[in-house]
Structure formats: C-alpha cells, structure tokens
C-alpha cells in the first residue's frame, strides 16, 4: 500500500510540475530585458522554412526558452544558493563573495586586450598630446585587496600594470593609487568605488598633476538601496549598498555639457532620476557618455584637463573640477580615436588616462 501511495505521489507531484511549468512557459507574457544581466532577453524566433531547415529556429528557440522561463531570476537564485551553500562552491558565475564583498574573479591577464589598450594610449599621446603633460593612473579592482587574504587566486598585478608602466614610461607620468585605496573605498555589490570615500584618491591625483583641492563637500544619500552589478550576477542574498554623492556650493555651479547627440546638451552633474533606475551608479554624469565637459566658472586658474576614462571617472571627475577651469572627459570605447581631435582641444591641457584594471583586461 505504501509503495502504491508513493508511486501515485511521485506521478501527481512531477506531473503538476511538468505541466504547470509548461503551461506557464507558454502563457506568460514575454519580458524584454534582464536587470540582473543588463541585456535584452531573447525573443521568440521567426518560424520560416529557411529558419527551420537551417536549424536556426531551433537554436534560437532554445535561447528563448531559457531566457523567458518563468521566475527566471528566482531560479537563478536557487542555482546560486544551491551551489554556494550546499555544494560549497567558492564562486558562482565567476563571482565570489567574501568579507561581505562581491567581486568577479580575475586570474588571467588578457595580454591581447592589454596590448590593445596600451596601443590606444600611445596613439593618443603621439597624435594629440605630444606637447602636453600626460599622466597615467590605474585603478585596482577589489580582487587586489580581497583575494590574497581569502585564498582566491589573483592576477599578477605587478606584471600586468608593469606592462603599462613600461609601455608609457617615455610619454606619461604614473600616479599610483594602490596606497590610497582600500576595500572600504568600493561598493560591496558593485565593481565601482564610492565617491564619498575618494578624497585621498582625488588629492593624490591632484598632487601628481600639480593642482590643489580643498574638498568642500557635504554627503548626500540616495534613499533607495543600491543593488550593484554583482548583486544580480551573483544572485546570492547580499546586503545592498547605499549610494552617496558629494555636493556643495561648488558642485551646483559646475556646468556639464554632453556632446553625444552631436549638439551640446547641458546635463546634470548627478542625474537623480538614474539614481532610482536600473543602474543607480549612472547617476554620476548620467552614465556612459563618449564626450563630456565639466566647466568650473569659479576656477582660480585657466588650467584644463582632458581625461580619458571609463565609468570610474564619472564619480571622480566632479572632485577634480575644483582645480580646473574645464575638464573634458573622453570614453574611447564610444568614440573613434581618429576623430577625437575634431572635438577636443588639447592646447595646453593636462592629459590623464584613468582606467580600472578590469577594463584594461577585457
């Protein structure tokens, strides 16, 4: 009797799961994008004879079926929790969590990528900044502070940064940041650093470039939890961060102009709408932009800075604006290097290359 009951229970329970999930798969409204993965989700593929006979329909349908699965984020979390807490995995989806910080494992140097970045820097120096004072600064990732003590493998930082130092030794002055940074400067759930902790970094860069800063700011806070990029990728129960920003009489006077649309467009230093959006860190200078300027009408000098940067520069540049009349921010991932000269005036400007190691290693 027990065996029969057991058999019936197995059939009923598993049938409910199979049929229930199947109907849900077919009936649920399709979702457009994944906030945790920051990408569009696959759409149902075209059903044509050519697509079917070539096998493309089936391949794309497999992607669609996984992307549009009901409760996809919840199942991803189940996967992460099972791997992390039951199987004892030290990383899930290449993200590890230790000391309350989530970070992406970075073990191998991608020499091809690093060489490409080095060549870009040298091209810019040769083409535009031959007579300028050029500075290079590399931002270590959290691995630099986390992995050694916690037993995770890590990149040979000395060797990796050494490539750039050696390559730019004749054209740029290196300003190291490792000594003024620590784990506390970074968000727990995001790869970025916290603006409110960057006084030491700003001072070090300013000192290296020969300007002085007084750092006249108050700290504001976004009253919503900040779920950084690793929160979604790890899909583990992590405590969200708090997004803070620095403001004061100076920041209110800064004029930020964006040139991405082809015409100059005045934007906010801190986009508060984005602070409550999909990627809250984009509140700093409205996220990924190819070309921006920050003008300081209260500047005590006529110095200008051209900063080649990634997203880390978005939160740092407002702090350097105190020491410059104008800062031009260029992201060469979104603008052709050959055309930079059309938009940027390098005459007499300091040039700073400020990049995060993960960007240079990809």
């Amino acid at each position, binding site marked *: 009797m027990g065996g029969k009951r057991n058999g*019936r229970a197995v059939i009923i*329970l598993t049938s409910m799961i199979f049929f229930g999930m199947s109907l849900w*798969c077919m009936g649920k409204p399709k979702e457009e994008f994944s906030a945790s993965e920051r990408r569009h989700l696959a759409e149902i593929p075209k059903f044509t004879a050519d697509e079917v006979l070539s096998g493309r329909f089936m391949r794309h349908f497999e992607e669609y079926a996984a992307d549009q699965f009901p409760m996809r984020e919840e199942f991803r979390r189940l996967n992460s929790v099972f791997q992390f807490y039951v199987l004892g995995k030290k990383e899930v989806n290449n993200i590890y969590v230790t000391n309350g910080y989530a970070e992406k494992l970075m073990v191998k140097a991608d020499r091809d990528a690093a060489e490409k970045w080095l060549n870009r820097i040298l091209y810019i120096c040769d083409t535009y900044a031959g007579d300028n004072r050029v500075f290079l600064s590399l931002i270590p990732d959290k691995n630099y502070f986390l992995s050694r003590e916690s037993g995770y493998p890590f990149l040979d930082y000395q060797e990796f940064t050494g490539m750039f130092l050696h390559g730019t030794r004749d054209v740029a002055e290196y300003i190291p940041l490792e000594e003024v940074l620590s784990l506390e400067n970074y968000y727990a759930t995001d790869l970025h650093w916290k603006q409110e902790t960057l006084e030491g970094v700003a001072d070090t860069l300013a000192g290296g470039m020969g300007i002085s800063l007084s750092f006249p700011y108050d700290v504001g806070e976004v009253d919503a939890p900040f779920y950084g990029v690793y929160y979604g990728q790890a899909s583990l129960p992590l405590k969200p961060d708090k997004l803070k920003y620095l403001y004061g009489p100076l920041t209110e006077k800064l004029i930020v102009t964006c040139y991405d649309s082809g015409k100059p467009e005045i934007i906010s230093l801190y986009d508060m709408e984005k602070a409550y959006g999909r990627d809250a860190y984009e509140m700093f200078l409205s996220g990924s932009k190819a070309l921006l300027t920050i003008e300081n009408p209260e500047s005590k000098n006529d110095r200008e800075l051209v900063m080649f940067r990634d997203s880390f520069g978005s939160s740092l540049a407002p702090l350097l604006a105190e020491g410059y009349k104008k800062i031009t921010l260029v992201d060469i991932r979104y603008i052709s290097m050959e055309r930079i000269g059309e938009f940027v005036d390098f005459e007499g400007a300091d040039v700073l290359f400020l990049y995060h190691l993960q960007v240079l290693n990809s």
Partner: protein
Amino acid sequence: MLFSSITFLYYFLPWALLFYFLSGRYKNLVLFLTSLVFYAWGEPIYVFLMVFLTGIGYIFGILAEKYRESVWKKYLVGISVAAALFILGYFKYADFVVENVARVTGSAWELPGIVLPIGISFYTFQMISYVIDVGRGQKAQKNFISLAAYISMFPQLVAGPIVRYSHIEGQLEQRIHSKDMIAGGIGRFIAGLSKKVVIANTLGELTQNVLDSGQPSLLLGWLYGVAGAMQIYFDFSGYSDMAIGLGEILGFHFPENFNYPFISRSVAEFWRRWHMSLGNWFRDYLYIPLGGSRVSFPKYIRNICLVWLATGIWHGAAWNFVFWGLFFVPFFILEKLWLGKKLENSRILSRCYLLFVIIVSFLIFRVEHMEEVLYWTGMMFGRGVPFSTREALFFLKDYGGILILAVFGCTPGAKHLYVKMKSTETGAKVLDVLWPVCLGVMLFIDTAYLVNSSYNPFLYFRF
C-alpha cells in the same frame, strides 16, 4: 533536442507523453511521430536519412525472413548490413579517411566537410542488429510503424542504450503501464537529469578551468584526470538513466547500460560494467562470430584487437579514439594471462590499478593530439611541475563539494542506502513521504541549472 534542455522538459515531454497515453492503440504511431519531431529538432534534414535507413531495415527484414531457408538470406542480410555500414561510414568517417589518405599520399584533397547526423551510430547499430537477428531466426516486423517506433524511439535514439529488437519485440506489441513503473521511470529520469546537469556539467566546468589555467602542477593534473573521467561517466550514465527512465514511463524495459564501473577491479570487469549495451553488441555481433576466446591464442589476440579497434572507431573518427580502443588490448591480454589472478588478491591494489588505467584511457579519449596525453600524465607524476599552486588549490576547494558528491555517486552507496531504508517499516514510511519531495526538489534544482546556463551578463546595459 537534448533531454537536459528547457525545450525538451517543458515544451516537448509533457505533451508527447500526454498524446502517447491518450492515443489508445495508436501508441506506436504517436511514439514514432513524436520521435520524428524530437529528432528533426536537432536534424531537420537528416531525419529523412533515419527514416530511409528504417525503410531499408524494414524491407530487408521481411525479405530475410521470407528467404531464411535459402542461400539468399545471407546476401540479403549482408546487403542491408553493408548499406547501413556504408551510410555510417560515409557520414562518420569520410572526412577522416580522406584526410589521412591525403596526408599519406601528399595530395591536396579538400575535405568533403560532411556533417555527422546526431545518433547515427546508435540507430544504425539498432537497424543492423534487427536485420541480423531476423536472419538468425527472429520474426520480422511486418508493421513499418512498429519497426520505425523501435529504431527512432526518442528515449534512446541519440545516446543509447543500444536496444536489441529481440529484447523489445514483445513490448512493441503489448506494453503494461503501471503506476509503479511510471513512477520508477520518473525517478530514474530525474536522477539521470541531476547526474548530467548538476554533476557532469559542473565537472565539465572544472576541466575547462583546468585547461585554461596557465599554472601546471601535480594537483592540477590529477584534478583534470579524475574530474575528466567522472565527467564522462556522469554525462553518459546520466543520459542512459534518462533514457531508461523515459522507456519505463512509456512501458518499455531497456537494458541497463552502466553498473558502477569505477568499483571494478580489472579492465575486463570495467568493460562488463561500462556502456554494457555497446559491449554486448560487439560481443554478440563481432567477437563471438570471430570465435571469441575459444580459439588459438594468436586468434584470440586478433579478435580482441578487432573488437577494440571497432569499439574505438565507433566512438569517433579520429586517431585518439583508435588508440583509446587499442589501449585496452594489452590489459585484457595481461589480465587473462596472469594479472587477473593477482588482482583478485588485493582489493586496494586492484582498484588503484583500474582507476589509474581508466583515468589515462579517458585522457586519450579527450585529447586532440596524443602529445597531450604525455603532457597530462607527466603532470600527474609531477614531472617538472610543483606539487600544487594557489590556483589548483582554489579549484580543489571550489569544486570540492561536487567532487565528493561525484565520488560517492560512482559507488552503489546511495542505492544501498535506499534499499536498506525501504526494507524497514519506518524507513519505507519515511521514503513514502521523502522520495516524491526529493524528486520535486531535484527537478527544481535541475531546472535552475538549466535556466542559469543561458546566463550572459554585461557590465553595462546593452541596448
């Protein structure tokens, strides 16, 4: 279509089974049609090849039965077997043959670039075994749909087990469906899915990480060897479990394909426990017709070499598969002559011997170039490498849980535990409640793994 995919689990399987059980006496037709859909999903063009081969088997099976008492039987069976082997040879080995002939002769021939249809090795062998068995006295199947259902049956079409027609003939005509069998099949399917998705795929991740590592060490070598061997086992045996489980749901009893091969104490025993349906096929259709072991010693060696050459080539059209098959020959011979008796005296030594031979054999199985086998075995003996590196230790910690689970899963420990619990009143009551819940949980976890397999993140929003 893979069993371990969202498409199969939630778009195909429930509805295929529903139509099957509602189809009354048309079950074989529904099984054939759903199997065609299943196969065409992965091979929209070559589904016709499978139907064509089934047609050859059908026609020649009937003819072989009709002319069984005459000399024509031999020719009819021979022609159909040759046709099947020709088709298999063309699709699977043409590129390999052309490449090697060109290499030897120095010609600049272009490779034909023939695509290998999925499952062709399995359904060809099933068709061949059907025709040979009819030639030997088995009754031919007059109903094309029934024969087609047997050859194309989706549970075992792409990855076995190889099911003999004689084994399944009665079940094609009449099947008993019971709750116990269906429940048992569901349990077996989910267990197999877990083996594939949770264990095999994770071990695959580990072996890939090891390959990508730039820091060789003795520990890294062993991680690769051990994880690689277990990955192949769980992948293949997981698939076999799913096939056997699906068969049970449909009312068929398929033969077992694996019987805890890693607890073997000799290579001979290993091959009585590993991919048993293939081993039995080669035994019955090649080894025994050649005389088996009841021949002179030189002929015995010839037979062993031919069977293992065929076994190796069956697995793939590349030299490493040929070497892999032939790799076992000296062990079979040594064990037959004297090593077998020695191995019986020590459980530990015999198991260590077997495990090492198998780990090395699977290195040969996996590589593209034979130098890699020397590279990895050298690393396993610490030749010119440190004992361990930070990275290798991290891999051991990172995948330690899954490695322990995999090692336990290679033994019949879980099965013994289940049987022991079931044999007691309390244990049986606990299992009554626990087992369905466990299956449900395992299914959700397997689904979670499959959903996560499409994980593809970006740092910034991609629009």
